[in-house]
């Protein structure tokens, strides 16, 4: 639709432009040609290039056949156009020659005598090759452009066809042209020049078009020659696809020349309908009669034509058809498609018997021996025949089985699969059949067609095929109306619904299977084709789909399918085993669910023998060593699913310890595997496996449980591989209540110690996250109860230690090459804090101490103002949950009223917590509260001083707004400053915190004067800061940090008293003589700027203007980057001038 509208825009404009263009081209032509040689120098003026471009674009959009008719066709334009073509350099404009050739083709289409020109024009045209006739000149133009590498080649071929098929030229010029063409084909085949291919393409196209446009009787004499010579030139087997395609086109047209043009009388017709006739006849209220008459007429026609069928079919036609059938197997789609259309056209002119033989020959393409290409070509050809009514209803019995096979053609060839195009073409065939036949004719094949199309629409791997299947199904329902439950199914599997493969497999299939006609065929298809499909995703989807389909018809699965699945589970290839095990797992689970729902014993669906076989599958695979190598990954994953489903089905194992041990070992092997999907499958399996088969009901089992937990905990403590620690931590989280009960006092410390950062596990952030999740899930499993024993449920002491560890883990800022991986831990901790707190509140709010809540709230707020969007979002959600936990509310929230005022319930639910634009302005308001201030400032400075431009912009804006709003409340500003400094002192030398903090300080001091009140003449504050900065710079080699420090120091010159100023100078002196040249230069520039700017307000240096001038000169003139000793000498001069003692290099 869009495309068409776009065409509309272009075309609409084109109509208006058209007149202008024609005018312009004409003018260009007149100037160039009519005016004679002298004007040639002025050419192009006006240039025909622009209108050519417009025409070229129109041709591109609407095709040359339509533009062709729109061009003016007056004989007087012939000479100018021809001359433009002759003089224009073919390469100067892409469209020009193309459009001119097109124009010439319509001009020469006029019925006039070509030779007339030669008399009238020879006198006027003196410049262009005198002595040649117009005909010869046109032929030259054609031949030149047929050799072009541009698109004008195609138009030259078109012109050739139009020109040479003129009645007055046909006899004289055509034979020599054809001869010439084949000479070119023969000679050019010898060379490998790239232009040779273009030339061959040009002449082949010209020949093809001549045979398309020419009159049959005139061409009949040449057909033989062309047929023989084209065969001899070997174009049908050329390596270049376009050449083969054009060769196939030429062949089919030659074939058509041999045959009398007629509509095959024997073709199948489903009534010829003309709307106007129908309505008119209806008005005459004689519809019935009319139809009868028409029928009679038609019969008469048929009889007439039947008589004609004596006609002989010449040998050449047979050969043409043979070549076309060969081309159906070509390796390129375009050639096959062209051949298919050719087969359709030629067959339409054949007598009945022969035409039907063609159908037979096509049907022979569909054998196992033929390649997938042949199948595709065959489907296309059959569809073409069906559309033309040449596939007679009698053949449907042979065509339908072929269609059924083609609809599910899917094979793996090496790394890629083939068949999607065949399935699509088969849908096209079905679609054509829906249009071609009367419902009665198709009635016997309805079931096959309907299920075939349903299978494609529901279960095809590719989205275009599913949609094609759905469209063909719709066509049948709408035109035939005979598909069982067609309309209901149509609305279920419409174009949009089948777009999503998972939806088609898991939801739509169940809906369709609800109609009994389709249930079994759908299941059969899945079992035969999809369970062992080459794509593992399809195998998994199939297994899940079979689960739902088993629910629809359990008996069928249990009787017909189960056996095969069990057999294939230990079968030959990886795909078969993997698919069969997965499907078996899901079917078993479904059968047991059905059994328990219907209160039938399980063995009605799975008999004992089958059961035994299912249970030994894993042992068998283990014995055959199929869990090793790359394929082993698939087997492990599938086996884990099998164990999980068997456990969920609670199949009786009779305490067979060997099986249980094999399974348990396998799962333990899987939980420490590198592939995440294998781990997850194994963990899921482990949970249900323990629940079903390892209940500690006997002393033996209790002992087994104790040893298991002991062993796992031991691994946590001793292993030096992260995967092991990760896997076993996760496994502990999966423990069911019965197993964890009584052991919580051991489990908890083990998990908590995993959450803590230990020296040799610093990088194990993923494990720590898992440990947090496992702890949380154990707490959920066991429940919180302060009155029971600590080993059975979560009591007050456990809670205290969990909270303290969780809060501590919010300080996890582990980084590796992937960045801040500690964020995983912090986010997990935030979520855990939320869930845990809500659970505790439900049980007993008294279990929460005031200190814990206070720290939790502050830390959550801190996380909500830090750098990572995702983390802020999690923190924001947690904050909302804690603030508005309902009921009971969380006690001891510090400054609850203020908090709720800043974050009303509505805001909390609507705000985007990840957006730095909105959240920071809210959080800064909490800076007034002494409880929140330190944590918040820690977070905010971390964001402000970060390198993300947007984040630091919004945070610093929020900070400035906050400070400006407190300008009248010096005590708040004072506390703000004190807190900043104490944070600085606390985290001295912790780069992650101090660098952003110094940057924030610099930002606050440079761009706002609000903190000046705190610092003005407050030597203590300034000196404290300078001391901190100095300590921070000891042995520091971080250029960015030093820059930040220098910025702050220079800013202090603006504020401080003489003593502090001296301290600043002392510190700056160190930087001026720093070992890194860049730092020296930076320090010099900053100091110079500061001195110039701030010396007006007060005397920065004793000795007044003159000294200052000297210092400035030194700063300006010294090459700080060059020599360290030179720099230090100059630095010492400055120190003397400023009256500070120059720093002495340490004696080594």
């Amino acid at each position: 639709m869009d495309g068409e509208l776009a065409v509309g825009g272009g075309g609409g404009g084109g109509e208006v432009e058209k007149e202008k263009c024609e005018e312009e081209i004409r003018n260009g032509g007149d100037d160039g040609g009519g005016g004679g040689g002298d004007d040639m120098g002025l050419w192009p003026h006006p240039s025909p290039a622009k209108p050519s471009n417009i025409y070229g674009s129109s041709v591109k959009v609407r095709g040359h056949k339509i533009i062709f008719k729109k061009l003016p066709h007056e004989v007087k334009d012939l000479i100018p156009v021809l001359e433009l073509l002759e003089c224009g350099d073919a390469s100067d404009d892409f469209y020009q020659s193309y459009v001119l050739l097109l124009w010439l083709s319509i001009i020469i289409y006029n019925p006039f005598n070509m030779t007339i020109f030669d008399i009238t024009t020879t006198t006027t045209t003196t410049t262009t090759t005198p002595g040649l006739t117009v005909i010869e000149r046109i032929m030259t133009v054609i031949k030149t452009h047929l050799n072009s590498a541009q698109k004008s080649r195609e138009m030259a071929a078109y012109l050739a066809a139009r020109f040479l098929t003129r009645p007055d030229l046909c006899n004289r010029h055509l034979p020599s042209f054809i001869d010439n063409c084949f000479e070119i084909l023969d000679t050019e085949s010898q060379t490998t020049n790239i232009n040779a291919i273009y030339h061959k393409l040009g002449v082949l196209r010209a020949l093809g078009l001549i045979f398309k446009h020419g009159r049959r009787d005139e061409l009949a004499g040449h057909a033989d020659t062309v047929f023989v010579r084209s065969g001899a030139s070997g174009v049908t087997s050329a390596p270049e696809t376009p050449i083969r395609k054009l060769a196939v086109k030429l062949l089919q047209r030659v074939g058509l020349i041999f045959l009398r043009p007629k509509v095959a009388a024997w073709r199948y017709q489903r009534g010829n309908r003309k709307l106007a006739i129908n309505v008119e006849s209806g008005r005459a209220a004689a519809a019935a009669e009319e139809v009868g008459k028409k029928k009679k007429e038609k019969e008469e026609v048929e009889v007439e034509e039947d008589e004609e069928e004596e006609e002989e079919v010449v040998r050449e036609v047979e050969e043409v058809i043979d070549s076309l059938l060969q081309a159906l197997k070509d390796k390129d789609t375009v050639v096959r498609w062209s051949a298919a259309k050719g087969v359709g056209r030629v067959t339409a002119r054949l007598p009945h018997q022969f035409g039907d033989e063609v159908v037979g020959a096509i049907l022979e393409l569909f054998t196992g021996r033929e390649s997938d290409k042949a199948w595709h070509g065959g489907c296309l050809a059959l569809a073409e025949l069906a559309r033309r009514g040449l596939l007679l209803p009698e053949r449907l019995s042979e065509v339908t089985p072929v269609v059924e096979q083609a609809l599910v053609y899917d094979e793996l060839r090496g790394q890629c699969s083939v068949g999607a195009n065949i399935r699509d073409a088969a849908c096209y065939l079905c679609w054509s059949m829906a249009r071609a036949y009367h419902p009665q004719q198709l009635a016997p094949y309805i079931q096959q067609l309907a299920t075939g199309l349903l299978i494609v629409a529901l279960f095809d791997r590719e989205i275009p095929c599913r949609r094609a299947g759905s469209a063909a199904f719709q066509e049948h329902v709408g035109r035939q109306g005979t598909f069982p439950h067609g309309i209901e199914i149509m609305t279920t599997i419409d174009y949009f619904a089948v777009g999503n493969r998972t939806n088609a497999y898991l939801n739509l299939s169940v809906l369709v299977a609800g109609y009994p006609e389709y249930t079994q065929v759908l299941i059969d298809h899945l079992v035969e084709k999809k369970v062992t499909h080459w794509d593992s995703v399809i195998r998994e989807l199939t297994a899940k789909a079979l689960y739902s389909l088993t629910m629809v018809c359990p008996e069928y699965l249990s009787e017909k399918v189960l056996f095969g699945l069990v057999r294939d589970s230990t079968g030959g290839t990886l795909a078969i085993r993997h698919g069969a095990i997965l499907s078996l797992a899901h079917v078993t689970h479904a059968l047991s669910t059905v059994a328990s729902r219907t209160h039938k014993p399980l063995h009605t669906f799975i008999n004992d023998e089958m059961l035994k076989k299912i249970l030994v599958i894993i042992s068998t695979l283990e014995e055959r060593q199929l869990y090793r190598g790359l394929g082993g990954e698939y087997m492990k994953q599938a086996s884990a699913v099998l164990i999980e489903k068997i456990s969920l089905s609670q199949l009786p194992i009779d305490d067979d310890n060997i099986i249980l041990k094999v399974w348990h070992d396998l799962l333990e092997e899987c939980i420490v595997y590198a592939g995440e999907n294998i781990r997850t499958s194994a963990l899921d399996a482990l949970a249900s496996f323990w629940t079903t088969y390892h209940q500690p009901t006997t002393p033996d089992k209790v002992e087994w449980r104790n040893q298991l937990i002991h062993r796992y905990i031991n691994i946590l403590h001793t292993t030096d591989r992260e995967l092991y620690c990760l896997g076993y931590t996760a496994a502990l989280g999966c423990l069911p209540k019965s197993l964890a009960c009584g052991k919580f006092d051991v489990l908890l410390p083990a998990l908590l110690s995993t959450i803590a950062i230990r020296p040799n596990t610093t990088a194990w952030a993923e494990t720590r996250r898992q440990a947090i999740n496992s702890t949380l899930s154990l707490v959920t499993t066991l429940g919180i109860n302060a009155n029971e024993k600590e080993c059975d449920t979560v009591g007050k002491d456990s809670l205290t230690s969990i909270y303290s560890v969780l809060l501590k883990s919010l300080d996890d800022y582990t980084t590796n090459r992937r960045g801040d991986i500690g964020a995983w831990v912090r986010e997990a901790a935030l979520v855990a804090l939320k869930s845990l707190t809500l659970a505790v509140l439900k049980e007993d709010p008294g279990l929460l101490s005031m200190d814990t809540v206070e720290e939790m709230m502050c830390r959550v707020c801190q996380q909500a103002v830090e750098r990572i969007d995702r983390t802020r979002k999690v923190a924001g959600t947690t904050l909302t949950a804690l603030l508005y936990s309902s009921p009971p509310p969380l006690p001891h929230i510090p400054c609850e009223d203020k908090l709720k005022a800043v974050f009303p319930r509505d805001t909390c639910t609507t705000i985007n917590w990840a957006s730095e634009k909105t959240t920071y302005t809210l959080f800064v308001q909490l800076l007034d509260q002494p409880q929140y201030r330190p944590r918040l400032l820690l977070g905010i400075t971390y964001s402000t001083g970060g390198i993300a431009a947007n984040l630091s912009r919004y945070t610093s804006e929020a900070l400035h707004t906050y400070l400006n709003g407190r300008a009248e409340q010096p005590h708040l500003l004072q506390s703000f400053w004190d807190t900043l400094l104490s944070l600085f002192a606390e985290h001295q030398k912790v780069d992650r915190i101090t660098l952003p903090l110094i940057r924030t300080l610099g930002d606050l001091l440079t761009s706002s004067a609000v903190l000046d009140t705190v610092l003005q003449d407050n030597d203590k504050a300034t000196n404290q800061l300078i001391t901190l900065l100095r300590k921070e710079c000891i042995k520091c080699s971080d250029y960015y940090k030093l820059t930040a420090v220098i910025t702050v120091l220079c800013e202090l010159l603006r504020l401080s008293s003489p003593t502090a100023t001296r301290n600043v100078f002392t510190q700056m002196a160190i930087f001026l003589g720093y070992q890194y040249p860049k730092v020296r230069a930076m320090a010099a520039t900053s100091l110079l700027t500061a001195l110039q700017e701030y010396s007006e307000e007060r005397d920065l240096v004793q000795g007044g203007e003159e000294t200052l001038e000297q210092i400035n000169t030194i700063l300006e003139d010294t090459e700080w980057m060059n020599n360290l000793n030179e720099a230090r000498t100059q630095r010492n001069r400055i120190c003397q001038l400023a009256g500070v003692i120059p720093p002495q290099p340490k004696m080594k």
Partner: protein
Amino acid sequence: MGLHTILKKMKQKEHEVRLLMLGLDNAGKTTVVKQFCGEDISTISPTYGFNIKTVEHEVDNHEYRLNIWDVGGQSSLRSYWRNYFECTDGLIWVVDSADVDRLRDCRQELRKLLEEERLAGATLLVFANKQDLPEALSAEQIRDVLELNELKTHHWYILPCSAVTGQNLIAGIDWLIRDIAARIFILE
């Protein structure tokens, strides 16, 4: 060269137009379609689901192939509006001119339909059907009730007609095809 491309080419080449026939139940949609197809109209029962019919029609020396989708008045429509391969070019909205009581319903249904984005750009032809009945309202009256004059989003046209006698059916289709052709078969 998938089914999608084939159908797209075929549509251009064979001048295929997809028309959707809609309206309240008992408006006479199926009768109109049967008239087009020259089928017997003496026995017609309510359409359940839909029918696709193909007829050829010549307008201004161009042969067009009309794929008419006759969708039952009661059935859920969404699946028929569009599939990937063919989009709706024209809408024929059939009104029972004699059923004065339900004209308000009719207006609402039509308005809802025209808001559907998958029908954006489609040409609308309204048949004020059953003009052969004495109590039928005129096309002008129907136009006012349906508030067609306020319709700015679609090209529209209303004609009095009778599916039983065949009055004006061809005139309506001719207008519809011309309007569609001007849009999708440009420069022809």
